[in-house]
Structure formats: structure tokens, C-alpha cells
């Protein structure tokens, strides 16, 4: 009886842990889904999201700026703020599991950093592409 109970507890805890590990991925998927909905509204012929496109967008230069200025071109490594030198934790969820797990935080940083790098808001297409790329990084 006792060992059955403790086995059930172990199984419950493990499933809980597994659910926890997937939760962040679920949030990212949910956000990508939301961006897809918005992208369809912005573009009748929305082609879907592309990790390749997201990668090019993120790593590329936009005027004088690039996302890599702070995040570097290796998203599994820590970056450094271009001006202050402050360490920025890795952005790829595979290297830093809390990334992309908080929708408000994702939106906040898209708002700020797209303004910084592009001097405008990112489109839903761009956000979805970038997120698709980030979650695909192994």
C-alpha cells in the first residue's frame, strides 16, 4: 500500500515536471498563434512564418542597428548591452528555458527593441518569424 502511494506520488510529480517543462513551449506556441492571426489581418496572403526569415531578420542590419548589438549572433550565449556592457542572458529557449514564457514580457521587449533597432514597431509577420526561429534553435 505504502509503496503504491509513493510510486503514485513519484509519477504525479514527474508528470507535473514534464508539464512544467512544456508550459514555456506552450506559451511560445500560443504567442506564435496570436501573431499568425494578426499577420493574416495585416496581409491577406500571409504565407505563414519562417524560421529562416526570422533568423535573417534578427541577425541582419537595419540601418545602423542590429538585434545582435546586444544579443550577439549566438543566441545560446550570453550577450552584452551595446552601451552599458550589462550581461544579457541567452535568448534561445534551448539555452535559457524561461525565455518566451511570459507573453507580457515578450511583447514589452518587442515594443522597446523594435523601436530601438528599426525605429518602428515590428509587424506580426516579423515577430512570428523571429519567435519561430528562436524556438527552433537547438
Amino acid at each position, binding site marked *: 500500500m505504502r509503496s503504491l502511494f509513493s510510486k503514485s506520488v513519484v509519477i504525479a510529480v514527474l508528470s507535473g515536471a514534464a508539464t512544467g517543462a512544456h508550459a514555456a513551449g506552450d506559451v511560445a506556441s500560443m504567442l506564435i498563434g496570436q501573431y499568425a492571426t494578426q499577420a493574416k489581418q495585416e496581409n491577406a496572403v500571409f504565407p505563414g512564418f519562417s524560421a529562416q526569415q526570422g533568423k535573417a531578420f534578427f541577425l541582419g542590419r537595419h540601418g545602423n542597428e542590429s538585434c545582435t548589438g546586444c544579443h550577439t549572433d549566438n543566441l545560446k550565449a550570453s550577450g552584452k*548591452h551595446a*552601451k*552599458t*556592457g*550589462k550581461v544579457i542572458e541567452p535568448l534561445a529557449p534551448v539555452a535559457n528555458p524561461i525565455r518566451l514564457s511570459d507573453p507580457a514580457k515578450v511583447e514589452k521587449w518587442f*515594443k*522597446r*527593441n523594435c*523601436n*530601438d533597432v528599426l525605429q518602428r514597431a515590428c509587424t506580426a509577420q516579423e515577430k512570428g518569424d523571429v519567435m519561430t526561429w528562436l524556438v527552433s534553435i537547438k
Partner: protein
Amino acid sequence: MKTLACLFLSLSVLSFPVMADDDDEHHGGSARYGKYNGENRGKTALSGKGNNVWNQECGSCHVAYVPGLLPAESWRKIMGGLDKHFGADASLTPQENREILDYLVVNASNRWRAPTAPLRITESYWFERKHDEVSPAVWKRASIKSPANCNACHAGAANGDFEEHRVHIPR
């Protein structure tokens, strides 16, 4: 004559401590506002861990500068212009902004007597005086980058610990 001499002597002696403190009189400033021409930081050591929202938001791109380093009016100006925060967009929701501003104002310098409110800590008189022995070349070291990077030399900057004997200037 003797009385006059006594008076003169006592006045000189009384004012001696003020004159010996070169923080006020040098640099052509007036002692009208007191130490550091009135631009004096307050208590910097954090009580507890500070405020979570402040720490999270204000500490994401640079060390979260503890509120005691500037007067309340400086913080009001900063928080009123976050979309153009020294070249970056640091904007917040109205609720986050309010919570952080309240925290900053309550814990701002209580020793600031001048009617000034600089946007940069590094432009305050106390900062300039406290760092006047640091040569320009030192600020440019790759390990430091700029005077805004407090924690390069003050390991406890995030906690408001700027104790002089804990300063370590990296190469």
C-alpha cells in the same frame, strides 16, 4: 582692539572647518547650498532588496541605479521620458511606471539642497568630486566602458554599496 582681535580670531576658527572641507569652495561653486554645492546623494544602501518591479525593469540594461543617488525631481524627469531614455526605448505600462516612480521618489536623496535635477548621476557634483581622481583613460578601459557602469568598480552597486575600501578598479 583686543576685543576686535578676539572676535576676528574666533570667527576664523569657527569658519575653519568649513574652509578645510574643500568640497564646497573649490570649483568656483558657492557654499550656499552646503556640501557638494547642494548636489549631495542621500542614503544609498538598499533597505531589503528594494522594489521588485524597479529591480526587474531598471536593471535589465544597466545596474539599477539606487534611488538615493539623485533627487526626486531627477527621477520624475527620467520616468516621464522613458520612451527616449538616453537613446533607447525603455517604456513601461502606466502601472509599472507609477510603482517605480513612487519607489524612487520615496527613497531619493534627502540631502539634495540645490534646486537642480540632473538627468545623469555622473553629472551631479557629488559624483564629479568623488571621482575626480579617476583619469579619463580609466573610464575608457574595456572592462569599464563608461562612468555609468558603476558595478565595474563597485561590486556592490546593485545594493547601493559604494564603500570606498571595497572599490576595485579593473585593468
